[in-house]
């Protein structure tokens, strides 16, 4: 069955797979959100430690999903990997630096003789949760606003600004996209912690934090949605492959793909319900609605960027250098082989879900921080 898929179907399938992984990453950024909440939602050391241990059992999942997202893009859309990472050098490097800081901070924060002190590692976590996500958001924002690069006849990239991607963070739409990710992560972080921790005063504050961060989210959300509805987009001629600017391109995409519009709408409503359930209905299940909503919103944004004859990584310096999923993709053979590999993904998701359920069968309590497992605790 996989072998009979056309090249174009495979390319579209792999954009969907990349979108699923990217959207799952969006959900899992509750870890990054939690990392910033340690400074704003806690009143003492114990509460801080509760948060860090709660997200501490999940941070590697988020990290690994990001790595898989990179790997999937490399395997399926190598020209994007080459163009964006090689061109927008500094924005990706800064993102990576924040993830290096994150990777050691959980483990080192509470260990004696850790050189930098617990406070420094907490700041590292907060940097990853704020600056890291802001820059990822700004980088993804360029899927819609474009970047200044050219490709030569050998598909080698030359970036046309000396800032190598940092300029993306100065564009209001990209900045709003980044802030959207930061506040969404904080909402999801709060919702996850409400579900995962048994500590009434902290949980009460986290419920409020979910709501407050939702209010903060509204402005960047309006900027992003408004921008998408009104901005010119990068349309691809289906016959010649020529890229040109089309007024209201993303609005057209949304109208032409009602399923995508439905995903966006249901996703947003699901996030809103998740927040409301935590803040006003005193429920612990908000994270599942918030998480599902984040995934659906993520999927719809990837669909808007890449489907319906749209250049997903556009160049404003040379429209014809823009990347479409067809131009950027791997060969048919590789996409087919990779599709067989991807059949293992449901199995992976299944064992993650199984282990998650077993590990989170009971909520984390303050008593555990001094219990028999205290030595292994973060």
């Amino acid at each position, binding site marked *: 069955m996989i072998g009979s898929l056309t090249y174009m179907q495979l390319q579209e399938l792999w954009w969907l797979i990349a979108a699923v992984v990217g959207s799952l990453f969006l959900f899992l950024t509750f870890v990054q959100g939690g990392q910033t909440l340690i400074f704003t939602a806690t009143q003492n050391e114990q509460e801080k430690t509760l948060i860090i241990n709660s997200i501490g059992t999940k941070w*590697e*999942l988020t*990290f*690994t999903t*990001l790595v*898989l997202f*990179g790997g*999937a893009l*490399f*395997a*399926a859309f*190598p020209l994007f*990997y*080459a*163009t*964006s*990472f*090689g*061109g927008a*050098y*500094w924005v*990706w*490097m800064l993102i*990576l*630096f924040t*993830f*290096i800081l994150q*990777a*050691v901070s*959980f*483990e*080192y924060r509470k260990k*004696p*003789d*850790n*050189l930098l002190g617990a406070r420094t590692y907490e700041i590292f976590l907060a940097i990853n949760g704020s600056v890291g996500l802001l820059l990822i958001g700004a980088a993804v924002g360029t899927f819609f606003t474009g970047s200044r690069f050219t490709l030569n*006849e*050998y*598909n*080698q990239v*030359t970036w046309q600004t*000396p800032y190598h991607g940092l300029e993306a963070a100065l564009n209001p739409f990209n900045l709003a996209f980044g802030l959207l990710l930061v506040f969404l992560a904080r909402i999801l972080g709060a919702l996850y912690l409400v579900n995962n921790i048994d500590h009434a005063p902290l949980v009460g504050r986290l419920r409020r934090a979910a709501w407050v961060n939702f209010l903060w989210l509204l402005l960047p959300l309006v900027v992003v949605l408004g921008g998408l509805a009104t901005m010119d987009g990068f349309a691809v001629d289906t016959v010649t492959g020529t890229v040109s600017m089309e007024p209201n391109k993303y609005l057209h995409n949304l109208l032409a793909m009602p399923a995508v519009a439905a995903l966006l709408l249901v996703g947003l409503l699901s996030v809103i319900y998740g927040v409301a359930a935590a803040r006003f209905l005193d429920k612990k299940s908000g994270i599942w609605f918030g998480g599902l909503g984040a995934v659906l919103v993520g999927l719809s944004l990837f669909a808007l960027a890449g489907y319906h004859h749209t250049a997903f990584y556009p160049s404003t310096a040379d429209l014809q250098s823009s990347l479409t999923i067809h131009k950027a993709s*791997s*060969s048919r*053979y*590789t996409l087919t*082989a*990779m599709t067989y*590999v991807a059949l*293992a993904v449901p199995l*992976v998701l299944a*064992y*993650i879900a199984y*282990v998650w359920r*077993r*590990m989170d*069968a009971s909520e984390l309590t303050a008593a555990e921080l001094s219990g028999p*497992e205290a*030595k*292994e605790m973060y």
Partner: protein
Amino acid sequence: MPDSLATVDWARAQFALTALYHWIFVPLTLGLSFLCAFFESIYVKTGNGEWKKLTRFWMTLFGINFAIGVATGIILEFEFGTNWSNYSWMVGDIFGAPLAAEGIFAFFIEATFFAVMFFGWQRVSKGFHLFSTWMVAIGSNLSALWILVANGWMQFPVGMAFNPDNARFEMQDIMAVILSPFAIGKFTHATSSGFVFASLFVVGISSLFLLQNRHQQMAKRSMAVAAVFGLLASIFLALTGDEAAYNVAQKQPMKLAAMEGLYRGTDNAPVVAFGIVNTTKRPGDEAPAFYQEIKVPGLLSLLANREFGSYVPGIDDLAFGNAARQITGAASRMEKGKVAVAELANYKAAKKNGDEAAAATALARFSENQADLGYGHLTKPADAVPPVATTFYSFHLMVVLGTLFPLLFLLVLYHTLKGTIEYQRWLNSINIFAIFLGLVAGMAGWVVAEVGRQPWAIQGLLPVNVAATKLAAGNVQTTFFIFLTLFTVLLIAEIRIMLKQITIGPEA
């Protein structure tokens, strides 16, 4: 390093820095994960709480090390894009697939079960916890599999064809990539080196306890398991090393010649058991290769071709050619390569102008010469020669140390079984120092593998200067120093934390 270094040099320096820092932590993860699984299996089998205490002690050290291994690992993946973007495009169709498979098949196993291993003692059953520890060991080593498949392909590119229309190599046979002898050789050699290093680590720390008269029983138990594992792994390491050298001799003869400082090919070629390299010697000149050397006649022929007295080509033969031995040198391959580069440009120009006849002619001439495409980017035959002294010394250091380790494990095992290990102060002192030696041996091995294949990013097809991103050198220079500072600070933190945990010892 001088400021005048080109972008490609900084990109290489940065990748080497990241890879070598990564390799400080990874071998310990590869081997200690299995040792923890062995220790915990004994605990579950015997029900003896002392083994649980022992397991948790080594797991603590494992966790500290694991975190920084993850941190350095993510950089490597993304550096292919940031610093080697032309490479990423030209071979991404082949190279990307193992990286994605690594994520799907390996990283999630590690990430998921790592949480159980550390936080699940009270939350899951004893059996499920043990299962999780084994899964972390298997997942860690599977991670190594996929990246080493990718590395093996860079050393010996198979299963692909060049597509002149989009100027990249495209995969044609994924099984050829996965089952390439280089992929299997890299995986078995690198993982077993990790097992050896982790065994040296456990033996060394245990020796420290014995010298300090602390935690004696735990130390002896740990040593017994680690010495057996280390002994078996070091024997396997030697066998896979022999296989790796044979593969290199067959497919990367220039690397082998550099490993042995062999400039003039010869029958019955010797191994240089000891040598001081003449660093002023250049390919093609008459200067001696060594200031001083001790040779073992005929041994290189045997190792390289598995045949006594056989011919092994030298650097000069491979650079300038040797008609008598039917060796095409880099010099004539460069001529063909330059034709391939020019005809590819002609082909693309003709296609752009819609001149199909000219395109067909150019393509035909390109096809005749494309096997030497990479050589078309070299400027002189000596460019095809890797740094000889670095490759030679690294190789010999690795081999000497690799030969010592099984002897050391044998001694430790003998005294452990005899019950006299705690009295062997000299042996225990050496064991502590051997941790450092294990690290050096592994690093030296990677230097041989990577420096020895210069100037190639993809053997024979893509030199590093074409593979690198077009970027002002200052950018990469800056990130190099940021990485250097960051990793050094984190390494110091890691060592301090580990030393403190060793001082604290297993829980009372």
